[in-house]
Structure formats: structure tokens, C-alpha cells
């Protein structure tokens, strides 16, 4: 208790090097703390926050797109009750892949590991939303005639599936928040948070029925 007091007193009363030296150290340490924490926050933290997982099978969208006649809806189709099938189930894939069609090791793996063993492929869905979200593909694709690319990006042209990064806290894909740690997006498919839905809905004046927000009612997108 006593010693620092002396220091303080002397620093306050003294002149010259001592004070400047201390002042320099203070500034240096400030910068050290600042830069260190910035590095932790911007570089280390994102590395720690997301786990990296490979898809069970490296699916080639591009190749499939060449072979099918009905675009995305050939495999990602609407059911007669208006619901959307999402990621195809094994039963669908088997229609073409009962046996390997070629030499592609990924296809062979798919047939051996899943088709033969009748196991569903545990796909990691980049666009998987929380359980509270109701998303109507029919409303967007059938009614509003929106393009799949608007939300999903040009995944149909991909030849390989990118690494799936799961947020270790929330369990959701990094694609929901977006690659950018600040959440800044450049393209319409860069992020899939509620605000991104709202942005488009506000512009389109889709269902302005809410008394509270004068925008869409909550139940438009929530269940």
C-alpha cells in the first residue's frame, strides 16, 4: 500500500524522465492490451467459435444439374401438400444410384456406405434454421417466383461441398450468421438471419399486418 503511494506522489510532483518514462509505459501497455485483445477477438475467437466438419459425401451439384431436366426441383421438390422436401432422402437417390454409375470415389462411398446399408446420409445442412422458424418455399418459389440463388447462392454450380462450419455455442451453420464476423453481407445469400428475411419482406411489403411493427406479423415466419 505504501510504496506505490510514494511513486504516485513522486510522479505527480516530479519532472523529466521519470514521468515521461512511466507515461510511455502506460501508453505502451495500453497499446499492447488493445492490439492483443483485437487479435484475440478478430482472429483467435472465430477459429475457436466454429468447428469444421466435412460432409459425409462430397456431393457434386454441377454434375447432377447437367443430368436432370427440371433444375433444382428435380431433387428438391414440392410435395403435393405444398410442403418442401428439402434435402433428398436416400429413397430418392437410390432411383439412380442403386449401383455406382461411374468411378467417382465419392459415389462409390455413397453407394457402399449408405445405399447398401440403407442408412440415411447425415447431410450437414448449411441453411438449417432454428426450430422456431417457419419458412415456406411455396410462398417464395411458387408465389413470389423467387430464384433459389437469391437465398442459397450459386450452390447449384458447385462441384464440391464446402466445409461445414458449426457454431459451437448455437450449433448452427456459419452460413446463417455469414462468413464475415461483423455480419456484413455483400450478396443476398451471405447471411440468413431474421433481419435478412425482414429486409426483403419490408421492401416487398409482403404481409404488413403487425400492429406492433407495421411489418409482417410474427407468425408469417415463426411457428
Amino acid at each position, binding site marked *: 500500500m505504501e510504496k*506505490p503511494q510514494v511513486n504516485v506522489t513522486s510522479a505527480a510532483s516530479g519532472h523529466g524522465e521519470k514521468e515521461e518514462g*512511466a507515461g510511455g*509505459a502506460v501508453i505502451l501497455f495500453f497499446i499492447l492490451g488493445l492490439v492483443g*485483445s*483485437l487479435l484475440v477477438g478478430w482472429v483467435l475467437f472465430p477459429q475457436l467459435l466454429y468447428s469444421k466438419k466435412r460432409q459425409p459425401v462430397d456431393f457434386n451439384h454441377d454434375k447432377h444439374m447437367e443430368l436432370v431436366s427440371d433444375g433444382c426441383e428435380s431433387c428438391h421438390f414440392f410435395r403435393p401438400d405444398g410442403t418442401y422436401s*428439402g434435402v433428398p432422402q436416400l429413397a430418392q437417390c437410390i432411383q439412380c444410384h442403386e449401383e455406382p454409375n461411374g468411378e467417382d470415389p465419392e459415389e462409390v462411398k455413397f453407394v457402399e456406405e449408405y445405399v447398401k446399408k440403407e442408412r440415411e446420409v447425415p447431410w450437414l445442412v448449411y441453411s438449417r434454421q432454428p426450430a422456431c422458424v417457419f419458412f415456406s418455399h411455396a410462398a417464395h418459389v411458387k408465389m413470389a417466383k423467387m430464384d433459389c440463388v437469391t437465398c442459397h447462392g450459386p450452390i447449384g454450380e458447385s462441384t464440391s461441398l464446402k466445409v461445414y462450419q458449426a457454431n459451437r*455455442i448455437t450449433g448452427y451453420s456459419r452460413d446463417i450468421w455469414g462468413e464475415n464476423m461483423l455480419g456484413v453481407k455483400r450478396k443476398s445469400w451471405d447471411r440468413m438471419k431474421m433481419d435478412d428475411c425482414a429486409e426483403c419482406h419490408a421492401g416487398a411489403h409482403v404481409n404488413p399486418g403487425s400492429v406492433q411493427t407495421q411489418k409482417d406479423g410474427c407468425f408469417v415466419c415463426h411457428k
Partner: protein
Amino acid sequence: MKIDRRCFLSFIVGGAAGTALSPLPWKITDDLSIWSQNWPWTPVPPAGETSFVTSTCTLCPGGCGISVRKVDERAVKVEGLKGHPVNDGGLCILGLAAAQLLYAPTRVRGPLKKVDGAWREISWADAIKEIAAKLADLRAKGQPQSVAWISESDRGTTAELCKRFLTVYGSPNYFRTPSIQDAYETALYLTQGQRAMAGFDVAQADFVLSFSSGLIEGWGSPAYMFRARNAMRQNGGRISQVEPRLSKTAAKADQWVPIKPGTEGALALGLVHVIIAEGLYRKNFIDSRSTGFDALKQIAGASYAPEAVSRLTGIEAKTIVDLAKAFAGAKKPLAVCGRGSGRIPGGLQEVLAVHCLNALTGSINQPGGVIAVPEPEYIDWPEPEMDAVASRGVQQPRLDGAGRDGFPLARYLLNRLPEAQTAGASAPVQALFVSGANPVYSLADTQAVAKAFSKVPLIVSLSSYMDETAAMAHYILPSHAHLERYEDVPAALGFPKPILGLSKPAVKPAFKTKYVGDMVIALAKAMGGPVAEAFGWESYEACLKQTLGNAWDTLVKNGYVVDAKFKPGEFETPSQKFEFNNPALAKLPAYAAQRAPGDEKSFPLTLIPYDTMRLASGPIGSPPFLVKALEETVLQQNTALVDVNPATAKDLGLSEGSAAVLSTPKGSARVKVHLFDGIMPGLVALPRGLGHTAYDKYLAGKGVNTNALISPVEDPGSGFEAGWGIRANLTRA
């Protein structure tokens, strides 16, 4: 340069500033909130393709059409089938909660054998082999008749298979659990000569007089009765409910006539008296379509004049006269009986008296009346070849005395079995199969039943659930749950038309279970010889398909076949008329109001059980949703509440919510008191369906089983279970 406290402070400040300027705190805050919105321990049901399976509910004999909603391979919910003649889209509370039964933790997951008092898993093959060996043993000893089978129904392919098994094995001892059906079938046979089920055209009646029948509390086909009751009232019809307690049926009736419990038959005879005395009966029916009217006149003569009936029933004489006039004055009156949901047959004379009321007004086989619905006849299997052991065995008297000298009219008297088992030095039942029934819970005086069952060396339960009877069994050969199997539903109880339904598997069996039908076939095959030969079918499904023949495709598609143009047949008595007094009827003892067992001094009150839709009181235990939906005036924590009239409670020094001990000659239980103005003074009412000792934590140990507190009462004429209550006492705990 000197590193001092200020540097450290400065480092912290810089760090804080840098952290604040980085995404770290903000992202963590946001992600934690998202984590809290999706806690890993809160389940997220997987999405999938929705589909619907059309089927028929088999949780009760009501025969409702159901539509099972599935998401991929999960049965998510059971809903009523729109357009179904019985329930048209509506469904009762139990049917709606059916998915909970399918996925219940109390399901038996595979065959079990009790070894040293503990359950051990056993393979199906071994279980059937062991049981077959024991049965073969009994047969070898010349005691095939010592094998008994208890089931809820005696109709349809499953029951027929079981009965066929017993027959070729050599036992006459197939038992159907008691219900008002027993009494009605007998009444129809005695008066109309028809072997038929009683249907009730409530929808088209314009005055329904109900003698304690819970029209909206599970009586008949529950969902149909709901709809029919409303249709009838919509058309201006009226309902008078005669009952000691303001049940929901009474509350929703146009008139509630409180009556001393057990005297409903006396009131019916009193009404007969007035209708005859005032000449209000339908002369054309009486004259041209009935015989023995004079005998009825005599029966209902002087001793059932309004004043006398008033003394018996506690109903004012004027009310009796008015009721008779209103009933006879209606265009299409209908009188029904069977207390509550009709789990107890009641006295035969009582049913006959009520049935005679219908006859007096011509409401027999007419729109709006009681309809004799013929028993289904689609099962046409070749007679089995029987060996000498079997032939001798089936000739042995039934253990309950049904159809014999004592009770020639009855077909099944399960209520008499416990006493038969314990009365003599040796126990007559050596092996017992129980399927679709839970007698240890649902027969009166459960202690006596349990004692009798404990004297059976081999009990095989075919229950899907760990119920009270299964818990007492030596083997459990679990059947599929009702959403996992094919089964024909030969009739809808109380529905006025013949209807055949089909129960279809909505999902694949989740566990190592086997349907009763398949188990019987497998057991028969394991027995070999003539027993095996009688079961030529490869599987139950094949048997069912073959039996239903042409109807199969329609049943698979629609779920039911109904005979829309059905017309009730003619009377089949020797006189071709409605017989008020044929020789068999004349032999019956005269009607007498049934007294509650117990002495009035030590038990000044009377306990009556009542039924509520919110509790399943039959072979199925209530799933969690039902218990959750119970009113707080029925159950609080684990304590059941009894209804007591405030005046009675005051005399006993009890108030709302008081803890009390309810005692009867059979036992006692801790209850709480609910003051209810809708119950006659001097009575205590307790709901049926509580007090389970088996099942899961959502049901077991909650409330009191009424059957543990009451004792059986045998109807002298028919041997039917006729108990409606017992003397009781209620004291402050």
C-alpha cells in the same frame, strides 16, 4: 522504463477497449441467446413428409374411424376420420391421446417371463414353446377345461381365433369382460328372440329417457353418442336424465331427476304403471306386435303405483306421472339404461323394465328406438376337427356357471370366476390367458380377484402395457399396440346399424411384439395335433384377409363398410311378437331394488362410482394427457376427490378440500372432499379409472381404484354383476 500499477491498469483498459471493438463479446452475447432458444435438452422434432393412415380405433368398442397423422415413420397424432358414419371427424379424448399409448414408457418391449418374482426377457420361440408344453401337460392330464381365456370381446377374428383355440384344445372357459351388453343381449333375446346387439337410434329420437346412462360419458359408442345427442337436440328433442348425481350427461340434459341409487328399475316399472293406467301406450304395437301385455300390467300393478315408487326412488309422485306422460307423449321416445359408461351389466330385471318402456311406446326396431343389430356373420371358418380330449373338455360345465342350470340366460359371467377359483380346495383354473382386458384392476373387489388369480399356476398376459394383470402374470407375450396392427372391428357398440371397421397398422411395430392373433396361431402350431390343424393360416393377416374376402379392399381404402340400407329384422320369438312374458321371463325372480352391500350403522353413507370421459376405466390405462386434463375437483396431486353434498359434509364436519378417509366394508382410502351440490345427500361419489398400481409414473399411484372399495353383487336372475355402490363412511383424516 518502469512497469507499475498504472501500466497494468492501462493494459486492462486497452484490453477492454480492444475487446469491445472486436466481435467477441457481442457475438458471444448473441450466440448465448440463440443457445438459450435451442437448449440441447429441449427436443426438436425432425421434419419430414406428412401422411395419413385411415384406420379404426380399437381402444374401446366404439368403432370410431381414425386418421393417423404421420411424419415420415413417426405417428404424430390421431384424429377423427371425416365422413365416418360413427364419429364423422370428431374423436374422444382417449382416441386423441393415442400416440401417447403407442410411445408409452409402460409398453412391454418383448416377451417376458417371471423368474423368482422378477421379469426376464425371453425369446418368442422359447416363450411359446414353454407355454405350449405346459398346456400339453394339462391336456395330457385330462384337464383341458382348466384353461381359461379372458378378453374384452367375443366378436371378430381375434376373439374367434382365441375361442377356436380353446375349443380345439378342449375348454369351454372363454370369458368376455362384463358390460351392459350382456344385459341388453339377454333382454333382446328374451323379448324379441333375436341374438343381436342393441343399437340406439338416439339421433332420430325426440325424447330420450336415460336411467343413469352416461350418454356423453362413454356409454355406447362415445363419439357417436355425442353426435347423436346433439343431432337429436338440434331437432328439438329432449333428454331426461335419471341419476343420483349431476353427471355431465345430467348437467347437459333438459331435465335432471335425482334418484336414490339402485332404484332405476323401480322407476321404470313405475312409469310402465302410469303409462298403462292412463292408457298412454301405443295400442297398435301392443295389440298387433306383442304378447303377454297382461303379465306386464300385473308386474307393474299395485306395487309400482306412483306413490309406492316415490317412496322407493325418492322422486315425487307427480314427477313420476309427468315423466311417464312426457315419455309416452313423445313421438319417438327412447329409454336407455346401463349406468355410466356401461361397464357393469346391472340387474336383468332392470334392463327388461326399461326395455318394456320402449315396447309400450313401440320404440323397438323403429327409427329413434332400440334397434336389434344382428351379430356380424362374416366369419365363416370350417368347423375344426376335435379329438376326444377336446370333445370331453368342452362338455365340462363352465366355471362361472353361465348357460347352465343356475344361469341359463348368461353367456359369460366373469364376475363369478374369482369366487369359483377360491371356493373349493383345488383351484379349477390352471392356466389363464388374458388379452385386451385388465381384470385385476377392473373387476369389483380387486383384492379378491388378485387372490383368485394368485391361485392360477400359469397366467399369460397378452397386454401391450405393464398393467395390473400383466404384473401378476407369469409370462407376458406383448401384443402390438393398436396403431401397429391389423384387426377387424366387427361392430360399433350401440350404433344403430351394422358396421364393419378395419384397424390398420399406421407404423411398424416398435418393439419385439406379436399380435394376439399371430400369437394364438403360433401357440396352436406349437401344440401340434388337432389343435395345430385347426389353424391352417400362415399368419393372422392372411387369416383376416381371407375371412374378410371381398370387403378387404374397401376396408383398406375407406376403413369401414356400413350397411346403410339396413332394416332391423322381425321378432324371432315363437309368437313372432314382442313377448312381455315368455316362459323364460316368467321364471325370473321378481324385480327388487338392489341394496348396496354393507351395514348401515357403521357405514352411514353410500359410495357410488362414476365415469368421466377424461379417464379411461377399461383395459387401457389413461395416457398422460388424460390425467393432465382432469379437473382439479377430481384429482389433486396424488389424492382423489370425492363428491359430497354440502349438507352431508356439514353433518360430517368436512369442508371443501378436507382430507378424509373413505372406508367401505372392503377397504379404505385417503381422499379429499369436494363439495358438490349436484349429488344427493348421503352419497359419496368417486371416479372410475384412478388408483392404478401398475403403468407408469404418469398414472400409477394417483387416486383410488373404486373397484378396490366395492364388492361384487350378483343379480339373482341372471348372475350378472349388478353392483352400483357400497355402504361407506367418510371421516376427517
